[in-house]
C-alpha cells in the first residue's frame, strides 16, 4: 500500500476532535472519576527507607480497625519466574515486576509498596496503613551510578549477575547488563581525525509528569471474573500484566479504559491494578485506588539518570570519522533501563564509519524506571549534540552545516545496523537552516543552539473495526487509549477512505471484550499502526459495498467504483448508490456492514527532528530564559496538523524542563526531597515563548497516507539545543543537567 493521492479532503485538515466537547465541559471521565456502589477504598503503605531488609510485617492492629476489610502484602502474590514481560514498555522480568508491586524480602527505594489496605473509606484505609508494623533492617542505600558500579558497593540483589560480559561473571553486582555495538575500527580511525573532542556528561532522573495520578477501580466477582476501570496507555497490556502478576487468566478480566490524563510512557506498566484486583477478590467488593502526587513521584517510574563519556573525531571538512561512547543508565531498583536504546540512538543521526558503543544497565535504590517519551534517547542526544557543537565551533563550520555533512539518509546504514529507508533528517536540517529564526539577530548574553534527534518508533499488534450504522454514519473502533487526539486522526483516515464527513464517524476506544488485542498507545504508533488497520478495514467495507452494488445492478464487481462516498457504475448506466442508501438497505443485501482488520505492521519508519533554541542568560543569577524556539520535524504526513504540532510542542517543552530545572533530588538516605510539583519544577506557561513548528513531510512509503510516528522524537533534541544555546550565550559548556541557575552561575564564575 502506498500513497497514491496527494490531495485529500480530510487528511491534513484540522477538524474539531470527537472527544473534544466532553473534555471542555468536564464530562470526560478520567481514571479517578469512576465510582460505584459499595465501593471500598485502597491505600498503600510504602517504605520510608531506600534500602532495607524486611524482617517482619504485622498487620493485626491495622486489620482490627473498624471499616478495614482486607490487607495484602508481598506474601499474597505468587512467586513468579524470570520470564521477560512482553508487550509492556521498559524491560522487566515478571519476578521483578511482582516485587515492584509489593516488596518481598527487601525494600529497594523510598516509596516501595509494602502492603495495601482496603477499607470503607479512604481515610480509614490510610490510617490503618499507618498501623501496620514493619520491622526493617536498614541497609546502606546506593544512590548513584558511580557508587553502584564500585567494587565494594552494597548489592541490591544478591542474585544479579551482569549479562553481556565477554566471560560470565563469578560475583553478583549492581550492573545488570552490558550492551556493546561496534563497527569499523575506531581505534585506528582516530588518526584520520583532524580534531577529536572527548567529554563526560551527567543527567538526572526525571519524571514523565503526567497531570493525572494513577487510578483504578476493580470489581472481581466470586467466580474470579470481573471488570477493571482505569486509565493506562493500553488496557490490553495492563490486563495481561495484572493477570500474570496475580497468576490469573487475562481473559477473566474486562478492562474498560477511562480517558487518560497523560502518560508519556509512564502508564505503560502496572502499579495499583493488581492491588485493587486482589483486594476486590478478597473482599467481594469493588475497590478504588488513586495515587497521591507524592506517591506518583516516589513510586512510579521516572526515566534514568545517566553518566556518559563521548568521544568524536572529525576531519577538517567536518566529516565524522570515528565516534565512541560509554554510557551507564540508572535502572532504578530493578534491572531494565533504556540503555539499549541509548546505544542505538546516540549516533543514529550520523553516518560514521567507525564506532564503538558500550552501555551499562545499573540498579540503584530509586524507583524502577519506566518508559518516558523516546526512552533512552534524549540523554544521549544531549551528549552527542553537545560534542558535535564543539566540533563545529572548533572547525569553524556552521552547526547545521556540520550536521548536514554527516546526516543519514535513505540507504545509509544506521550505527545500529540496518539501512535507513526513506527518512527526513536532511529535510529537517535544511528547513532549520532556511528558517528566519536561524539568522535572526541576537543581543548580549543571548545565544542560539541547534540539535537534531532520532527516534525509531514502533508498529505493534493492532485491531480495528469499522461499522456502518443504518443511517450511513460509521463507528471506528480501536483498542488504543486516545492520549492526544488519535480518535480524530483515525476518523479522518476513515472519512478519507469512505468519502463521508469526518463528523459522521464516531471513533471509539473499545474495552478488552469488545475488540481484538491492541498493543500500547506508545512508540508513536497509534496513527501509524491503528491507522493502517482502520484504512484496511474501511477498504474492505468499500469492496463489500461495491460488490453489493454490483449484484444489485447485476454487473461484474469491477464495473463498480467507490467515489466520494458513493458506489458508482463505471459505465454510468445506473444512478449512484450512496453510503446512506447502502447502509439503509444492508439487511436486504447480506446483512450489516462491518469490517475488522488486524495488523502487526512493518515499515513504521524512523523519525527525525531538528530544533533551534535561543536563550538569554542572566550573568548575575544564572537564570536561563528561553527566548525563541523552532522545531522542524518529519511527520511523514500530518493527518491532523494541530495534534502533530501539539506533539512537537509538548515534547520540546518536556525537553526544556529536563534541560533546565527538572530532577529527582534525594537526601543522603535516599529519601526523595521534592516529590511534588512545587519543587519538581516542570515548566509553567510563563517560562516559555510560543514554540514554532514546521511540519516537514517526507511521506513514509510503507503507510497508506505516509504517516510516521510523531509523538516521541520531539523530546530528543531540546537537551542539546538548550545546552548549545547556553554555551553560545555564555561561553560555558555545561555538561551536567539540569542547567539550573545554581549550576549556570557556578560555571560563569569558574575560569
Amino acid at each position: 500500500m502506498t500513497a497514491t493521492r496527494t490531495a485529500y479532503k480530510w487528511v491534513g485538515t484540522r477538524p474539531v476532535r470527537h472527544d473534544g466537547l466532553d473534555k471542555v465541559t468536564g464530562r470526560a471521565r478520567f481514571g479517578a472519576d469512576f465510582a460505584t456502589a459499595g465501593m471500598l477504598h485502597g491505600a498503600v503503605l510504602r517504605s520510608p527507607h531506600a534500602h532495607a531488609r524486611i524482617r517482619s510485617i504485622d498487620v493485626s492492629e491495622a486489620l482490627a480497625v473498624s471499616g478495614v476489610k482486607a490487607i495484602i502484602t508481598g506474601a499474597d502474590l505468587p512467586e513468579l519466574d524470570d520470564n521477560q514481560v512482553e508487550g509492556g514498555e521498559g524491560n522487566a522480568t515478571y519476578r521483578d515486576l511482582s516485587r515492584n508491586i509489593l516488596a518481598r524480602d527487601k525494600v529497594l527505594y523510598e516509596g516501595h509498596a509494602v502492603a495495601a489496605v482496603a477499607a470503607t473509606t479512604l481515610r480509614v484505609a490510610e490510617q490503618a496503613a499507618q498501623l501496620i508494623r514493619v520491622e526493617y533492617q536498614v541497609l546502606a542505600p546506593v544512590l548513584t551510578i558511580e557508587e553502584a558500579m564500585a567494587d565494594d558497593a552494597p548489592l541490591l540483589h544478591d542474585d544479579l549477575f551482569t549479562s553481556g560480559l565477554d566471560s560470565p561473571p563469578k560475583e553478583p553486582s549492581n550492573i545488570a547488563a552490558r550492551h556493546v555495538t561496534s563497527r569499523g575500527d575506531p581505534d585506528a580511525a582516530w588518526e584520520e581525525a583532524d580534531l577529536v573532542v572527548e567529554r563526560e556528561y551527567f543527567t538526572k532522573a526525571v519524571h514523565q509528569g503526567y497531570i493525572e495520578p494513577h487510578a483504578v477501580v476493580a470489581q472481581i466477582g466470586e467466580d474470579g471474573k470481573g471488570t477493571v476501570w482505569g486509565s493506562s496507555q493500553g488496557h490490553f497490556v495492563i490486563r495481561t500484566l495484572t493477570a500474570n502478576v496475580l497468576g490469573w487468566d487475562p481473559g477473566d478480566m474486562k478492562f474498560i479504559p477511562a480517558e487518560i490524563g497523560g502518560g508519556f510512557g509512564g502508564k505503560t506498566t502496572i502499579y495499583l491494578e493488581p492491588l485493587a484486583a486482589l483486594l476486590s477478590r478478597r473482599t467481594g467488593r469493588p475497590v478504588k485506588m488513586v495515587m497521591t502526587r507524592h506517591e506518583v513521584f516516589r513510586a512510579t517510574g521516572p526515566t534514568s539518570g545517566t553518566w556518559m563519556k563521548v568521544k568524536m573525531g572529525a576531519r577538517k571538512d567536518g566529516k565524522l570519522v570515528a565516534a565512541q561512547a560509554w554510557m551507564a543508565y540508572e535502572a532504578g531498583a530493578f534491572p531494565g533501563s533504556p540503555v539499549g536504546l541509548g546505544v542505538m540512538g546516540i549516533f543514529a543521526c550520523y553516518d560514521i564509519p567507525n564506532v564503538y558503543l558500550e552501555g551499562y544497565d545499573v540498579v540503584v535504590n530509586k524507583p524502577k524506571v519506566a518508559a518516558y517519551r523516546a526512552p533512552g534517547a534524549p540523554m544521549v542526544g544531549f551528549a552527542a549534540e553537545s560534542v558535535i557543537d564543539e566540533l563545529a565551533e572548533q572547525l569553524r563550520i556552521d552547526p547545521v552545516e556540520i550536521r548536514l555533512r554527516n546526516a543519514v539518509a535513505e540507504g545509509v546504514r544506521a550505527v545500529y545496523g540496518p539501512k535507513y529507508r526513506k527518512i527526513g533528517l536532511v529535510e529537517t536540517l535544511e528547513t532549520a537552516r532556511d528558517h528566519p529564526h536561524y539568522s535572526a539577530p541576537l543581543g548580549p548574553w543571548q545565544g542560539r543552539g541547534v540539535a537534531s534527534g532520532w527516534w525509531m518508533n514502533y508498529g505493534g499488534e493492532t485491531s480495528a473495526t469499522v461499522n456502518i450504522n443504518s443511517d450511513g454514519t460509521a463507528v471506528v473502533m480501536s483498542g488504543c487509549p486516545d492520549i492526544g487526539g488519535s480518535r480524530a486522526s483515525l476518523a479522518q483516515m476513515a472519512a478519507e477512505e469512505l468519502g463521508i464527513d469526518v463528523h459522521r464517524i464516531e471513533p471509539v476506544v473499545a474495552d478488552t471484550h469488545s475488540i481484538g488485542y491492541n498493543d500500547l498507545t506508545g512508540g508513536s504508533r497509534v496513527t501509524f499502526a491503528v491507522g493502517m488497520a482502520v484504512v484496511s478495514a474501511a477498504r474492505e467495507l468499500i469492496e463489500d459495498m461495491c460488490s453489493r452494488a454490483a449484484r444489485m445492478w447485476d454487473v461484474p464487481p469491477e464495473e463498480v467504483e467507490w467515489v466520494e462516498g458513493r458506489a458508482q457504475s463505471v459505465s454510468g448506466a445506473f444512478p449512484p448508490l450512496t453510503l446512506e442508501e447502502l447502509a439503509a438497505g444492508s439487511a436486504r443485501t447480506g446483512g450489516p456492514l462491518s469490517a475488522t482488520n488486524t495488523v502487526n505492521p512493518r515499515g513504521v519508519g524512523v523519525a527525525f527532528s531538528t530544533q533551534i533554541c535561543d536563550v538569554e542568560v542572566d550573568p548575575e543569577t544564572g537564570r536561563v530564559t528561553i527566548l525563541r524556539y523552532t522545531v522542524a520535524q518529519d511527520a511523514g504526513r500530518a493527518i491532523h496538523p494541530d495534534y502533530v504540532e501539539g506533539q512537537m510542542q509538548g515534547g520540546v517543552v518536556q525537553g526544556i524542563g529536563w534541560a533546565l530545572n527538572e530532577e529527582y533530588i534525594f537526601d543522603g538516605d535516599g529519601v526523595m526531597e521534592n516529590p511534588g510539583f512545587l519543587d519538581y519544577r516542570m515548566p509553567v506557561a510563563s517560562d516559555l515563548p510560543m514554540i514554532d513548528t514546521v511540519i516537514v513531510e517526507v511521506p513514509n512509503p510503507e503507510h497508506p497516507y505516509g504517516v510516521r510516528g510523531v509523538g516521541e522524537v520531539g523530546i530528543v533534541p531540546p537537551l542539546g539545543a538548550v545546552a548549545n544555546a547556553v554555551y553560545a550565550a555564555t561561553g560555558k559548556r555545561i555538561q551536567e543537567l539540569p542547567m539550573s541557575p545554581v549550576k549556570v552561575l557556578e560555571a560563569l564564575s569558574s575560569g
Partner: protein
Amino acid sequence: MAQVFFSNALQGLTGGTTEMEVKASSMRALARSLEEHFPGIGLQLKSAAVAIDGDIVPSAWWETLEPDSEVHFLPAISGG
C-alpha cells in the same frame, strides 16, 4: 541469499563472525540454518530484537524473506 548481521552479543556464539549470507526464504528457515552453523544460537536469537530490511519486526519469526533481505539481530530493546 539473505544477508544476516549479528550483534556484538551474538558474536560470542558466531566465533566473531559479524555477518554472513544465508539461503533462506523465511525467518524460520534462517533460524534452522543458523543453528546448524552455530549450535546453541537459536535460543539466543529468540530474545533478540529482529530488524528485517530496516524495520524492527515484532512478529519476525512469522516473516518471509526476499532474496536480497537484510536481517539484523539487535539487543532486545523497549520502546516508548
